[in-house]
């Protein structure tokens, strides 16, 4: 598998096929004397800003959400994570907006 072509920036869904974001970054672990190992995929604004520029990334204090590689399955159209999206920080904003803003407007 080509990590950048097949995984990076792909849509990521949870185990119930709910959209939870995109693969914003891939974290590799490098140990001396061993080949690099894919450890996590990352979702979050900080990761995205880091891709634009380190300075922008450093300005964001909110840490990205990491999903261990073992819970990831790379499919043809999307990446599936064996987690429940609503219980992860990936939908933090979505749930906050639902509870505090959008959900309070009549007809939501």
């Amino acid at each position, binding site marked *: 598998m080509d990590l950048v072509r097949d995984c*990076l*920036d*792909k*849509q*990521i869904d949870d185990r119930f096929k*709910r*959209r*939870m*974001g*995109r693969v*914003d970054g891939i974290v590799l672990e490098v140990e001396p004397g061993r080949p690099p190992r894919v450890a996590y995929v990352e979702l979050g604004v900080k990761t*995205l800003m880091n*891709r*634009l520029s380190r300075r922008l990334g450093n300005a964001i204090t909110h840490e990205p959400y990491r999903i261990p590689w073992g819970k990831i399955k790379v499919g*043809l*159209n999307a990446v599936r994570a064996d987690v429940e999206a609503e219980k992860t920080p990936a939908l933090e*904003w*979505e*749930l906050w*907006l*639902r509870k505090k*803003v*959008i*959900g309070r*407007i009549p*007809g*939501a």
Partner: protein
Amino acid sequence: MKKILEIALGIVTSVGGFLEIGSITTAAQAGADFSFQLIWAIVLGGLCIIFLVEQAGRFSAVSGRTIPDAIRERFGFNYFAFLYLVLALVTLLVLAAEIGGVCITLELATGIHFQWWTVPAALLIWLVMWKGTFGVIEKGVSLLGLVTLSFVVGAYVIHPPEAQVLRGALPSLPQHDSAHYWFVAVSILGASISPYLFFFYSSGAIEDEWNEGYVGVNRIIATGGMTFGSVISIAVLVLAAMIFAPQGVKFEHYTQLPQLLVPVFGYWGYWLLVASVGISCLGAALEITLEIAYFTAQGFGWNWSENQRPRDEARFAAAYTLTIILAALITITGIDPLKITIFSMALTAATLPVSIVPFLFLMNDYSYVRVYRNGWFSNAVVIVIISIAFVLAVVSIPLQIFGGS
């Protein structure tokens, strides 16, 4: 029978997206200033958008993905972020112009200054988004938009000189005001080849659950809808050429718009014009708002669909709400909507390459479109469109400065 109905409805709804304040204004300006001479620009813009919309629809029907989704995936976040920023800024201006168009028609209908209508118009757009489904927006508003056929009837009734109309369909060099001539031509192309149109169409294919079986339907809808839209734009140009040009009247303010139909239909012409412009601007405003929200949600992998309840996709609902507020803030400043329209059309032209270049790669990527990849002819057309887009990008801003007034 079902497919025929679907095609007919699809063509009508595509017209809804094509005809908006930009195409009406630029066509009226072209007719008033250069008689029939700029019909070719509408024809060229129409041909370009037919190909792009067809490809956007084919891509989504076959791959089950939208174009913005694939751009993020294939071109990475940095390119996506650049395209997103450029497109969001330009599209916000276009949306402000469409809201301005709705407000102007309300001013024409009531006599109350357009600025006062900004908040009610923005609220109306938001309410349709909030309560309506994709079908309501796509089909409902577009069916109402059939009233714009009054332009075509008007252009027919007024008996334009056929030879001159046909001659106008072929490109020719200006006899006077060269900079202004090319500026209007560029604005027409900017109004016709609107990125929001093909991005919206691509999302619409997913909302309507198109699959490979729709490739043929898509081709007919894209060709029929965009041709139909171009014909209405040409009708506006013909009316302006017959009514404004002989009197040497410049099209400088929206209040002049009713004069396009009043000489043909009398009293009812006034109200037909108000309804035509109002409904097409409302339809375009809804589609543009949706498109910005789609683009945002698809690029960041959020849940998105106009068919779901707002609370089930809070970020998507927040995106379109914020979009409407920002555009309304531009309109409410009271800047002449005509100026915003003309400026945003030229700016659209300036930013076209970033939106169109990805087509060439995506439409040839087997992993997305499999056997429905572009053939040599479609690729050649896309390369020609990209070349036109690059020329437009280079000349639009200088022309805005030297030929914009």
